[in-house]
Every structure is written in C-alpha cells, then in structure tokens.
C-alpha cells in the first residue's frame, strides 16, 4: 500500500513537470500556430537565470521569481526582431526558431563551461509519512503547476486579453478590423509562452541540475504531448502533457525502462493514427 502511494506520487510529480514544461509550448503552438523549437532553450534560460541568482549569492526563490520575467522579456524581443518574420511560413519558422535555440544553447554551454551545476531547492528535504518519503520540492512543483495551469486558463478564457488572443487566432483579419492590434497580441502571446517556459526551467532546475542540453531533453516529449493533446486549444496540450508525462514515468515501474521509453512514442503514434485531431479537438481555450 505504502509502495503504491509513493508510486502514484512520483508518477504524478513527473507528470506535473512535463505539463509545466509543455504549457508555454502549447500556448504558442495553439494560440499562434507556431511550433517554437527554441522553447526548450527558453526553459534552459529560466534555469540559467535561477542558477545565476544563486551563484551571485541571492536566494534561489528570487531567481525563480525573476526567471519568467527575464525570459518573457527576451521572448518579446525575439518575437519583434525575428519570429514575426516567419508567421507566413510555418516550416521556415520551425527552422528559424531551431537556429535561435541552438544559439541560446551554445551560449549557455560556454557560460557554464559545459559542466553540470547544481542549484539547491528553496524547500529542501522530504516529507516523511511513516516509512514513505515525499520530496518536498516535487510536492511544491505539483502545487505550483496546478496554480499556473488554473491561472493561465483564467487568463485565456476570462479576461479581455484572452479574448483578444483567441480572436486573433481564429480570424486575424476580422480581429484587426475590430481594432485589435494582432501584431501586439502576437508579441504578448509569444512573451507569455516564453515566460511560462522560463518559470518551468526555474522550477525544475533543482531537480535536474543545470546543463546545456536540459531543454532538448523535454523538447521532443513536449511536441509529442502537443500532438497527442491536439493543437488549437489550451486544454489540448495540457491534457497531452499529462498523459505523456505520467505514461513515461509509470511504464518503467512495470516493464523494462528501455522498452518503456520506446513504447511511449509507439503508443503516441498509434493514438494519433486513429485520432489525428488529438485528445481535445477544436479551437478555443
């Protein structure tokens, strides 16, 4: 019984981590129709900002609070300078953002000397219930992920800003005719997606340590999650991430980890074959 509770918690917490990482990717893919290959590197930058704050002697939580703002601001600048030139050509956008990601990754690699750097958790240790141990920070991640998810949902579904984003996605020309500056909205959406990635990076860096390839590790998983969940809505990618995250953490409990790794992708491909629109079809929130 105790074993089962621990297993459920561990699987849930990894699922939450994947959801957190995919949120930003999903927002940009669904709300803008852009597959941002630099998303992993935004996660990496969030992690780096946190590490930087820590290495300067500042408290870790301060770095975590700063990370989404710093990465969001950078996302805004990159959208203005580069990404907006690609809206007409989604394939080129993939290559362009991939190049951006490559540049960010190698710069960070140089900055940290190609090594692994550990960052302590703001809430260290584990919660002990009888013989069971729960990592406090993983618990915190589960809670923060839930809050961010609800917050993002409310922002997109219940605010004027969210309405404008959805309007620009659904019918850009009508949105423009109604006096919505779609270019400003795209900039803000991209920055928002980048900020979510920055936050994800900041929160997961104590768990996985900082290293230059931190972002790529999640990128493929993230895109599979978006595909399984369905592009076009906010709920789709989140649901997809939940499924992929829990599946890839749960399968190694029952079968050989090497097989499990492949099986997640096989299951995802089979699922998409029979339900190409994904778990959640249609546009909207």
């Amino acid at each position, binding site marked *: 019984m105790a074993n089962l509770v621990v297993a459920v918690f561990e*699987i849930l917490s990894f699922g939450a981590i994947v959801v957190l990482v995919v949120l930003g990717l999903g927002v940009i893919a669904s709300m803008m129709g852009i597959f941002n290959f630099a998303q992993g590197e935004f996660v990496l930058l969030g992690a780096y900002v946190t590490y930087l704050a820590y290495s300067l002697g500042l408290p870790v939580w301060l770095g975590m609070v700063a990370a989404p703002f710093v990465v969001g601001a950078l996302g805004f600048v990159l959208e203005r300078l580069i990404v907006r030139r690609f809206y007409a050509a989604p394939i080129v956008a993939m290559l362009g953002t991939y190049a951006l990601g490559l540049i960010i990754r190698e710069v960070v690699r140089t900055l940290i000397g190609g090594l692994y750097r550990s960052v302590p958790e703001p809430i260290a240790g584990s919660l002990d219930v009888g013989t069971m141990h729960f990592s406090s920070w993983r618990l915190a991640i589960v809670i923060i992920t839930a809050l961010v998810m609800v917050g993002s949902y409310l922002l997109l579904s219940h605010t004027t800003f969210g309405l404008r984003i959805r309007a620009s996605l659904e019918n850009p020309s009508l949105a423009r005719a109604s006096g919505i500056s779609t270019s400003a909205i795209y900039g803000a959406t991209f920055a928002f997606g980048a900020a979510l990635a920055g936050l994800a990076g900041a929160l997961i860096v104590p768990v996985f340590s900082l290293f230059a390839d931190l972002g790529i590790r999640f990128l493929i998983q993230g895109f599979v999650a978006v595909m399984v969940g369905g592009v076009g809505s906010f709920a789709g990618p989140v649901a997809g991430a939940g499924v992929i995250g829990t599946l890839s953490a749960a399968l190694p409990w029952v079968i050989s980890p090497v097989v499990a790794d492949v099986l997640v992708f096989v299951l995802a491909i089979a699922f998409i074959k029979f339900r190409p629109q994904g778990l959640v079809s249609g546009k909207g929130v």
Partner: protein
Amino acid sequence: MSKQNSNWSRRRFLGNFAFASTALATGVGSWVVSPDWANAAEAPIKVGIATDLTGPIGYAGNADANVAKMVVKEINDAGGLLGRPLELFIEDTASNESVAVGNVRKLIQRDKVDLVLGGITSSMRNAIKDVIVARGKTLYIYPQLYEGKECTPYLFCTGPTPAQQCDEFIPWLIKNGGKRFALPSANYVWPHTLNVYARKVIEASGGEVIFEEYYPLDQIDFSSTVNRVISNKVDVVFNTVIPPGVGPFFKQLSEAGFLKNGGRLSCVYYDENTLNINQPAEIEGLASCLDYFKALVPEDPASAKIQAAYDKQFPGTFLFAAGSAATGTYRGLKLWEAAVKEAGKLDRDAVAAAFDHAKIAEGPGGPAEMVPGQRHCKMKMYTAVAKGGNYEILARSAGLVDPKEC
C-alpha cells in the same frame, strides 16, 4: 570569471591572438601550437591530439588539450625529443563521430603527425582508430578509463580498465557498505561490459547482485529504480548511469532515505567535475575508484607538481581530473616520450616496440608502466569518498594494479 579578465597581459593577449590566427589559417576546429625554437637540421616532431573540444563532453576535451599543451611545452623547454622540438596539432572531434573521422584524417594526411592521442568515448575510439592505425599507419594512444577489450596493434590505452577499477574497489565496498548490490546502468557499451566484470568480482567476493537494469541514456526520472533499491534493501548502488540522468537519480535516492539508512553510493567515473552535479549532502559518502584525485596533492609530491603546473597555466573551468581523461593524456604523452627516447627514432614499429614496456617514474597518482604485450598500463588506484563536496582518499592500492587485458 571577472578576475581572470582583469589579468589580461600583453603576453597573454599576443598568445591568444596567435592562437586565433592559426585557427583561421588552418580551418575551423584545427589548432597548431608551434614550438618557440627550432632545430636547424630537422623539422619538429608532430604530435596530434584529436579530442572533443565542443559538444556535451567539451569540458573533458578541453582539459585534455590543455594537458597536451602543458606536457609538450615541458618537453620543449627541456630541450625537446631527440634534439628536435615538438609541434602540437589539435583537432576537434566535436562529440560527433562523423565529424571526427574527417578531422582525424586531416591530422594523418595533411599534417602527417607522428602520433595521435585522443578520443574520449568508446564509440569515438572505435570510429577513429581505423583511420589512425590501419589506414594511417600511425601510433594511437587512447587515454580514457573504459570497458577494456581493446587489443588493436599500435593502439595503446593509458586509462584504467574494469579490473583496475573493480578488483580492489568492490571488496572495499562490501566491507564498507554491504553485500547486496544494485547495478543501475545507462544502456550503452561501457556499463554493459563493466557490469559483466563487476558482477564476477561481486560474486567472487561474497556479495550478491540484487538487480542489474539498463535505462535510456536520456532518462531523467528514476522513481521506479529508487523504489526497487529501497524495497529490496540494497546496501550498495554501483552506478553506471551517466549525466544527465545521474543527478536526478542520486537526488531521488537521497530523498527516499537511501543514504540516511546507511546505503552506500558508488560510481567509478566520479571525479572532481561530476561532484558539482548534485548538492554535497545528496552524494555524501559516494565512493569512487580512479587513478588520481586532487585530494592526493598533500601526500604525493609528483602529483602536486603536475596539479600546480596545470592550475597555473590553465586557471578556469576545465579541471585536471581523472574522469575526463586528463590523467591518461598526461601518462600517455610521457610514456610515448620515454618510448621515443629509447627507440632513438620515430619509426612506428620501433616506437611501438619501446612503448610496449615503457615506464614513467612520476605521473598523476604515481608511477606507471606498460604491461609488455598488453598495450595497457599498470598504475596505482585510489578509493575516494565524497565528504562535504570534496574527496577524501580512504584506500590506496599496495602497488601498481594490473589492467588484465589482452
């Protein structure tokens, strides 16, 4: 970082400028370090280094290139080899086998080097060895700790083998940890081959292997593994999971109370570079067995001298550490120097024949000597344990440990 930048001197600027201009002249990924004196009669001896200057293990490749620069400078300052200076050719293998083969070919065909030292991963060694040894007709030194079984003629290995890393270490682990072993491993050649050997030693020493399991190289969640370790009451985790997975794995183990309950972590590639992956408390008591640790400096004057020279010439992030092949590089070049001196010429067969029984009295961690006919190197081995973010040496091999290869 800022401290280093403020130390810019004219000499250093000129040095770097010269370095940058040769990089431009020879193409991206190639560097030539020319001696500052020449022999009127004969051209310099050409030493080729092919290592991963860029890519995920760039930290190790850069350290190896630094060591090569240091040793070559030392030899040149002492009058060179056979009265000729050494010229160093460095090529980037870029952590990418197909790029590497092309660049190593440049060393062989364009630069016509007398020796190639390098390659860090086993897959890299396998990719470039044929280019160097068979088609290139050149000597090859492989400096990294590895899984053994490399018996190609003209290929000399100067890093530790499984026998050297296990024979004394595993009995120590049983005494200082317990009998129940778990072998969590990354799914590639080194862990597979090392585990076969480790299992034999564990069983011969009275221990037992509770489970041996392989994971994809990029797996970063180990909750099911941690659960197996805890619920099977494993005493010793003999880890061959590599970065990036190893950090989260050790963290999850410590959060699950493995260390608190007296469990012993062990990992034979852990050196000063990998200490930073986790918080010190998460790997407290982790045991490693290598040919050198920085902690040897107070007790071994020869190691202290090498470490001090390295730190003086290359302050910064690239550490002189055993797990990144830096010690094997040092040993390899010095053994080759001894072999060339004995042979009195650079002919491949003559140097190889002398290399076969070459010895050095001083090296990182102690003396080293080649085992005749094996093309592997006997060296001293040390067992160190992580304490508060540093290593403490707890056991030393009585003499030079046999590689037991070929």
